[in-house]
């Protein structure tokens, strides 16, 4: 409608003027061409316009062809790495983002766990750490336990005290290697046998009546052995041959089952534990994680800036 109105509003002159460009190129229908030519014959202005337009077109046509100043061939290095880099880029960024978040989360979890265990729950924290505590700290524990026992029986204290020093000398060479461990522990066995030997019947009676006392004795040896080396069977192996009397053998059988409960005893001994290798290792892990997380964050931010610039 608008076009029709505009067409009506336009004079023949205006409409022909619009067609002159196409007329030059021979892009008009025969009817249009005839119409333009009819108008040109009577309109000086349009004839002049046609002339100047033709001149303009011919001026454009005479412009020299500009040749490429250099070769635009594509070098393999120019395309392949850029292309690959572009692909890697878009894939690497989310991966880096994820790695950053993961590193921070891991750090937070480990750090929080560390803080919680050492400050808010020492009982829980003490248990695993005790396993890493140096053997030296265990000797007082053994002695303390031995002294406590001294109040009860006289024979047992002798055994306990004899066992303790021997264990002390054994601990420096503390190794799970079996040939080494039995060697020092064999020595207290005759000592224990000697103590029980003078009054064989009496002791066995006592053992029969009060099983707690002889087991306490083996428990001592067990507690220290289990704390140092897990392969705890040796104690029972040694304990069995020493008393020839059958009742003792029966009495000594239970201790290995108590092991689980025994391992909980060491933490009871107070005193600030010295910095253990476990703690140092934890700190190294925490520090390393923090540094890694910060480095990843820096890389992510840098990559984001690069990416934004590339997409501009």
């Amino acid at each position, binding site marked *: 409608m608008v076009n029709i109105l505009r067409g009506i509003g336009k004079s023949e002159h205006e409409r022909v003027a619009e*067609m002159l460009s*196409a007329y030059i190129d021979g892009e008009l229908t025969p009817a249009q061409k005839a119409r333009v030519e009819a108008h040109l014959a009577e309109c000086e202005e349009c004839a002049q316009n046609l002339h100047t337009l033709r001149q303009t*077109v011919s001026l*454009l*046509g005479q412009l020299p062809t*500009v040749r490429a100043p250099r070769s635009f061939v594509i070098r393999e290095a120019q*395309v392949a790495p850029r292309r690959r880099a572009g692909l890697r880029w878009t894939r690497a960024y989310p991966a880096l983002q994820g790695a950053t978040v993961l590193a921070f989360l891991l750090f937070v979890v480990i750090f929080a766990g560390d803080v919680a265990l050492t400050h808010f729950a020492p009982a829980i924290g003490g248990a695993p750490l005790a396993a890493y505590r140096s053997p030296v700290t265990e000797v007082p524990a053994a002695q303390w336990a031995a002294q406590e026992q001294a109040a009860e029986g006289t024979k047992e204290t002798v055994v306990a005290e004899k066992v303790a020093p021997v264990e002390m000398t054994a601990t420096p060479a503390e190794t799970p290697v079996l040939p080494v461990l039995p060697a020092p522990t064999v020595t207290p066995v005759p000592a224990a046998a000697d103590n029980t030997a003078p009054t064989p019947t009496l002791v066995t009676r006592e053992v029969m009546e009060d099983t707690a006392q002889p087991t306490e004795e083996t428990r001592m040896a067990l507690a220290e052995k289990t704390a140092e080396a897990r392969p705890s069977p040796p104690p029972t192996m040694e304990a069995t041959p020493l008393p020839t009397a059958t009742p003792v053998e029966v009495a000594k059988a239970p201790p290995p089952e108590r092991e689980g409960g025994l391992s909980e005893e060491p933490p009871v001994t107070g005193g600030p534990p010295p910095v253990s290798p476990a703690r140092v290792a934890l700190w190294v892990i925490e520090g390393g994680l923090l540094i890694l997380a910060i480095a990843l964050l820096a890389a992510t931010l840098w990559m984001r800036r690069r990416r934004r610039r590339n997409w501009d």
Partner: protein
Amino acid sequence: MDEKALITAAQQGDVDAFNRLVLAYQNMTYNLAYRILGDGDAAADATQDAFLSAYRAIGRFRGGSFKAWLLRIVTNACYDQLRVKQRRPTASLDALLVADPASGPSSVSFADEAEQPEEYALRQELNRVIQAGIGTLPADQRITLVLSDIQGFSYQEIAEITGVSLGTVKSRLSRARAKLRDFLLARGELLPARYRLTGSMADSE
């Protein structure tokens, strides 16, 4: 190897095959970019960008006219260059008109080797005015004008390259020519007498 075979090879990642296409089209591409942009450096950038884009996109080329497909990429690269130019402070028209001849294309060649020095200078001057006139046109009209009157493409080809209808090509070209004509007429005193546009119909038809 014919063009079709080169295209097929290039689509399979053969850079050498693609480069043979580059060598075949780089002069036309650069010339088109130079006339649209009026600047050698920008034209070189557009040409380089266009060939790189073409290499990356050739896998998506689905037959038809390779030339039209390539020139469509070239004109898009020129649009990009024009946008970049708009962001930067543009050279004024006067600066273009009094431009140092050395800043023009170094490889301008003339068919007439016997041309007199003053003739050569006048022609150089005229070409610079025409180029400045092209530079005053809006991007759409400019590209249509260059494709038609400098590169010699038909309306149908231009429609294909620029992705518009025939009618649009026709009207863009009509307006572009009229504007350039007005520009050249207004600067008639800059034109040597031989090329000055006159109202005379003496040499028409």
